[in-house]
């Protein structure tokens, strides 16, 4: 379990990190918490000449909420997401999801930026960010640009981020209404067999808006616009929830692996979404 050799760099600011990536080219990669990258390097599924460690870059850390907009620095750890009262008030679904990621030791090291930039379909944060309609801010040699989470993911480990760009900030509107992050996993520390992120708002007895995203059921996270639309304007009776589940099943595309065959994954996806909708509605 010894990875191949690399040269180590620890810049103090984003500009320095971007400069290193531009200069070192495709043999360089950033390391955040390392809890997706190091296991891959130990298995020699990733071999890199240069690692650019982001741990000293303070401008990439911290959580703030201003005028209803939540901003999270990419180097904020999952542990910090869990323990932030500000975030728990502004978007409690993030805490609910973070509690279901890995185990305490992994959450102390793993960052939100690493989780969303990684591009592993098993990661929980990308689907959550699509549900929240989050914006990712990327900084590269030509300045910064914003990309919506809903258009960031292209395929497994392929995202819209260019090699010399660094994801610096994640932002989204504070939520109101009901929320739920529901995840089926085989044991603590396992990636999802299926997970659902649901945000709902209520207008009297009816659902006024709904956002639904699914995790580990395709080679990218899946924001199912049709599933959300099936709920809006209904009182979330059984027929509406069944319609949302049916719409979601059209959008996902699971493959068979050690978590089970396709039919099983579709079944679990349905059960998980059904539960998530019920819990979110209870809280709306």
């Amino acid at each position, binding site marked *: *379990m*010894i*990875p*191949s*050799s*690399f*040269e*180590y760099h*620890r810049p103090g600011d984003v500009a320095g990190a971007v400069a290193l990536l531009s200069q070192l080219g495709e043999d360089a990669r950033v*390391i955040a918490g*390392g*809890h997706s990258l*190091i*296991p891959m*390097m*130990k298995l020699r599924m990733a071999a890199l000449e240069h*690692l650019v*460690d982001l*741990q000293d870059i303070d401008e990439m850390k911290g959580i703030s909420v201003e005028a209803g907009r939540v901003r999270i620095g990419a180097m904020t750890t999952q*542990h910090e997401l869990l323990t932030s009262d500000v975030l728990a008030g502004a978007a409690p679904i993030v805490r609910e999801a973070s509690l279901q990621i*890995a*185990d*305490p*030791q*992994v959450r*102390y*090291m793993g960052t939100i930026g690493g989780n969303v930039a990684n591009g592993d379909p098993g990661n929980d944060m990308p689907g959550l960010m699509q549900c929240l309609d989050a914006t990712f801010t990327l900084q590269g040699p030509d300045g910064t640009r914003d990309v919506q989470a809903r258009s960031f993911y292209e395929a497994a480990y392929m995202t819209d981020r260019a090699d010399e760009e660094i994801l610096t900030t994640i932002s989204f509107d504070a939520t109101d209404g009901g929320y739920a992050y529901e995840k089926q996993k085989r044991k*603590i*520390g396992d990636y999802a067999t299926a997970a659902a992120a649901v945000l709902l708002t209520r207008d009297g007895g009816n659902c006024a808006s709904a956002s639904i995203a699914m995790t580990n059921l395709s080679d990218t996270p899946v924001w199912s616009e049709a599933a959300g639309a099936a709920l809006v304007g209904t009182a979330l009776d059984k027929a509406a929830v069944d319609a949302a589940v049916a719409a979601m099943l059209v959008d996902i595309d699971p493959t068979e692996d050690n978590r089970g065959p396709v039919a099983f994954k579709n079944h679990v996806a349905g059960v998980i979404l059904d539960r998530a909708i019920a819990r979110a509605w209870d809280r709306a």
Partner: protein
Amino acid sequence: MSKMHLKLTVNGEAVETLAEPRELLIHVLRERLNLTGPHIGCETSHCGACTVDLDGKSVKSCTVFAAQAQGAEITTIEGLGNPDGLHVLQEMFKEHHGLQCGFCTPGMITRAWRLLQENPNPTEEEVRFGMAGNLCRCTGYQNIVKSILAAATEMNAAKEAAE
């Protein structure tokens, strides 16, 4: 690949050693610094036997590169107690049979120590949730949880007595 000059504070003492950036922290601790308390169980980030405290966080030291630890403050089981002066957690693991083969124990105790710093009065459920990154193949966990809860009570009593 050239080695780097690693400066760490380990169990309260400043130490220096040479290591390749790619070396895993667990190997630096065990092989370069002779701290064989933290164990290697899986080496794949799953078992928690290699848990040490790094800058106030419980981490699996098989999943940290030596280079990332540059400048860090590290506590291993050796820094918590020794045969002549056991830490309360060690006492309680002994008293409540919190171990059988003992392989997972250094990681368990080092993790439990950080857990109790953050939450001095945990419920049983909070202990189980907070210890979820540490596997034990012998005890069935029941007595580990009991030991940690007993240690919390002891530590709180000692704190009160001191005040």
